[in-house]
């Protein structure tokens, strides 16, 4: 009496297909589970026993051996309950064995036989489709999420009996169909809008450039000057996610268990703003199960770090790797994984501990305090930030003035999209996607200067005493400004404006 059920699991961001093998032998009654299983997988024994009993299936006194292969990968999560239960009833002969071929089964069982949702469904089902599985049986709450994996039929079940019933008569099953992602992307709207921000012309312009060229941005300004407002609205002007990006981002959210049945897919760019008391592992992820952290949850979106100098030093330094490589490499006892983390960093800080420098009528901070406060953001982090602006507390005329039609998110997004399509054209057949990605070696190729602007750039380089790195930053930002102005060449005016956003 032997049966096999196919299932899958997550290992960091990657997925593996697992084979749940069940053998029932006439020997001393026992229940053995092998295959490098973590605690919650072994606990399936109790859940399955009771769930089967409550479904009216009596397990005779047999020696039950369960192996989940590949046996060298550590298994975790509660998704193996349903495959084990189905495997036992198959081995007992309730279901013909060949039916289970080509079907992926995942789900957690309750004692009453109900099927509860599990984490990581979307990437597992996608991987299963790639492995040639045709059908999958998943918990009802996860069905909508799973349906976004293409090339595989998704059946949602809410209890064990239903699962058994469905599997014996697949021709009768109703498959879950996904909603049209492209349409969802096109119709999304945001509660926030840039027209809510009055005044702050420089910050808004900087945000426009940041969104257009995916430049990391730093806003310095006194408390209450609208730094958070700007950061929150930045995603309203960014180009919408593509369908592939939606699936990619949703996969990360799925693994983190952050997709709900009401909101089974992420169609908006993520926005994460961790509090400055955040721990290192909450940002980078990790733990025994190697879960993704906040830096990965804002992949393709915005990471807003308010009060950057108040973050712990190790947290700030942890940004270096994702800012450079757009991913996070993690090594723990349970293995090593790399999570994607390609986000747009918006950092904000007060200019000094009290927030009012250089207004010496209100700021009493000593030179030393100011220096120490600012030195908490290390040079390597500053180096990776292309745009630096200050926000100012608005005076009353700025608050009451009529809003500028050019300052709405819709108008700004239009400009960003134009600049984006210019970049797409430029970076065809290159590893780059945005101007901010251009490496130093390719700057000369992608940011050509004519004789006049070359002369100007040289003068800026000399008179402003720039380093090679900040000169390159200047050219990248100028490239984006030129794209926004739909100019093929970087002009003097683009360079002159870019100078104002430098460190």
């Amino acid at each position, binding site marked *: 009496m032997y049966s096999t059920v196919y299932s899958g699991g997550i290992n960091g961001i990657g997925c593996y297909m697992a084979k749940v093998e069940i053998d029932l032998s006439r020997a001393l009654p026992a229940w053995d589970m092998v295959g490098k299983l973590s605690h919650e997988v072994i606990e399936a024994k109790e859940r399955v026993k009771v769930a089967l009993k409550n479904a009216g299936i009596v397990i005779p006194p047999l020696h039950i051996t369960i192996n989940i292969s590949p046996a060298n990968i550590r298994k975790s999560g509660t998704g193996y309950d349903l495959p084990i239960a189905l495997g036992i009833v198959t081995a007992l002969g309730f279901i013909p064995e060949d039916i289970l071929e080509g079907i992926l089964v995942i789900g957690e069982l309750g004692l009453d036989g109900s099927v509860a949702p599990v984490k990581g469904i979307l990437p597992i089902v996608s991987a299963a489709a790639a492995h040639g599985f045709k059908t999958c049986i998943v918990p009802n709450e996860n069905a909508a999420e799973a349906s976004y994996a293409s090339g595989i039929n998704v059946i949602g079940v809410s209890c064990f009996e239903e699962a058994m019933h469905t599997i014996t008569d697949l021709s009768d099953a109703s498959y879950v169909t996904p909603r049209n992602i492209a349409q969802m992307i096109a119709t999304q709207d945001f509660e926030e809008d840039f027209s809510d921000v009055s005044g702050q012309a420089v910050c808004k*312009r900087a945000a426009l450039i940041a969104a257009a060229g995916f430049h990391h941005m730093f806003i310095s300004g006194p408390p209450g000057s609208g730094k958070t407002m700007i950061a929150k609205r930045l995603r309203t002007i960014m180009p919408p996610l593509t369908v592939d990006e939606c699936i990619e981002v949703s996969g990360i959210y799925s693994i983190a268990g952050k997709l709900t049945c009401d909101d089974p897919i992420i169609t908006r760019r993520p926005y994460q703003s961790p509090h400055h008391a955040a721990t290192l592992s909450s940002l980078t992820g990790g733990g025994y199960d190697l879960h993704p952290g906040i830096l990965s949850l804002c992949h393709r979106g915005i990471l807003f770090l308010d009060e950057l100098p108040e973050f712990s030093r190790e947290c700030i330094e942890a940004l270096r790797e994702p800012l450079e490589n757009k991913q996070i490499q993690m090594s723990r006892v349970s293995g090593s994984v790399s999570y994607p983390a390609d986000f747009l960093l918006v950092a904000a800080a007060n200019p000094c501990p009290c927030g009012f420098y250089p207004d010496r009528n209100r700021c009493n901070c000593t030179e030393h305090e100011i220096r120490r406060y600012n030195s908490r953001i290390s040079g390597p982090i500053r180096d990776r930030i292309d745009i630096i602006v*200050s926000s100012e507390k608005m005076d009353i005329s700025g608050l009451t003035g009529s809003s500028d039609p050019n300052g709405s998110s819709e108008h700004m997004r239009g400009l960003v999209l134009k600049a984006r399509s210019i970049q797409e054209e430029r970076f065809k057949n290159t590893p780059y996607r945005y101007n901010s990605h251009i490496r130093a070696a390719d700057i000369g190729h992608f940011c050509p200067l004519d004789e006049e602007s070359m002369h100007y750039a040289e003068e800026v380089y000399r008179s402003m005493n720039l380093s090679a790195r900040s000169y390159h930053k200047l050219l990248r930002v100028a490239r984006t400004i030129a794209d926004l102005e739909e100019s093929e060449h970087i002009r003097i005016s683009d360079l002159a404006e870019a100078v104002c956003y430098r460190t």
Partner: protein
Amino acid sequence: MENMIGSKLSFREKCCLYFFQGCEYIGNATIKRLFNHFGSFEEAYSAGENELRSVLNQNTLEKMLAERSKKDIVLEYDKVRQKNIRHIYIEDDDYPEKLRGIPDAPIALLVAGSLPNPLVPSVAIIGARSCSEYGNYMAREYASALSGAGIQIISGMAAGIDGIAQTSALSAGGRSFAVLGNGPDVCYPRSNESLYRRLLLNGGIISEYCLGSSGLPWHFPVRNRIISGLSDALLVMEAKEKSGTLITVDSALEQGRDIYALPGRTCDKLSSGCNNLIRQGAGILIDPEEFLGEFLHTLSSVGAYSGFLKAKSSLVRTPLTEHKNGSELRISFSSPEEKCVYDILDFNPKSMDQIVSAVNSSIPMPLPIVLQRLTGLCMKGLVENISGTNYRRKV
């Protein structure tokens, strides 16, 4: 024994004097009283409890007796010489002549490096510790103009104006002297470590406190009398209405030194002390060159520093004979927008947002144009960038 040459005191006497200086609870005036009563420091040091009681109160006496039984005064004094620091008694030949006349003149000084040259005029530049960009800039301007003319700069090596003035004096190739409220071998604040070392080479560190003494809060107002005492004029760059700087002004008034203050906007707290001084009759600092001319003129009219002044006669200027013409009239702007942006800026740093909104209320222009003109002005050297995102005019 080289620092005994020219001294009016024997080695043993100096050891005893240094012992009294090292007692935190015995002040300058008490040491003088002890000397007057016993006729010598050694007598005072070795006097019995009953005799001392007539000069010292009970509390001080007990502390002093306890300390006397603990300390080896010769060993202590030896440390001064080992560190190459001079101990100069008030009657000694190299004691600064200017200090001798001031009320409560320090009975002895510890000097690392050298003392101000008595044949060259000295000016004190002092001001707030947490100064504004304006004060910072002006302190640099005055210090480098004065030390460029060979004048010695005296100050307190504190954070802010003091340190800035002394650093720029040294950078301009001049000499500068710091009067500390702690031992001359202690660098306080630590952030001025490099200034401290440069002062040892191109000036000196002066203190009336013993080696290793950490600056106690009441030391600083007391040392201010030495700053003003060593100088011929006192320049106040920035001071709040209640500021330690004004203590130096008080002692300068008492000592009959000239006081000059840098005017500021009436709404700036850091200038209110200075503006008040001007209202009370202090000299007004408008332009470093003008001040220099006026200052040298005053010196020559009283017949001081004749040797120095002879060499610098070209700089001496009678007050208010010349006025600089507004230099901005000669600036050639490349566009009306550029002039508009320049007109909006002044010497106080303004943020880009402030500039943009001010520009829009005179000549409305698109934001990128404002930023481009700003960069243009920076490159012409007319405007400078402060703390990343703020701009102000350059003088």
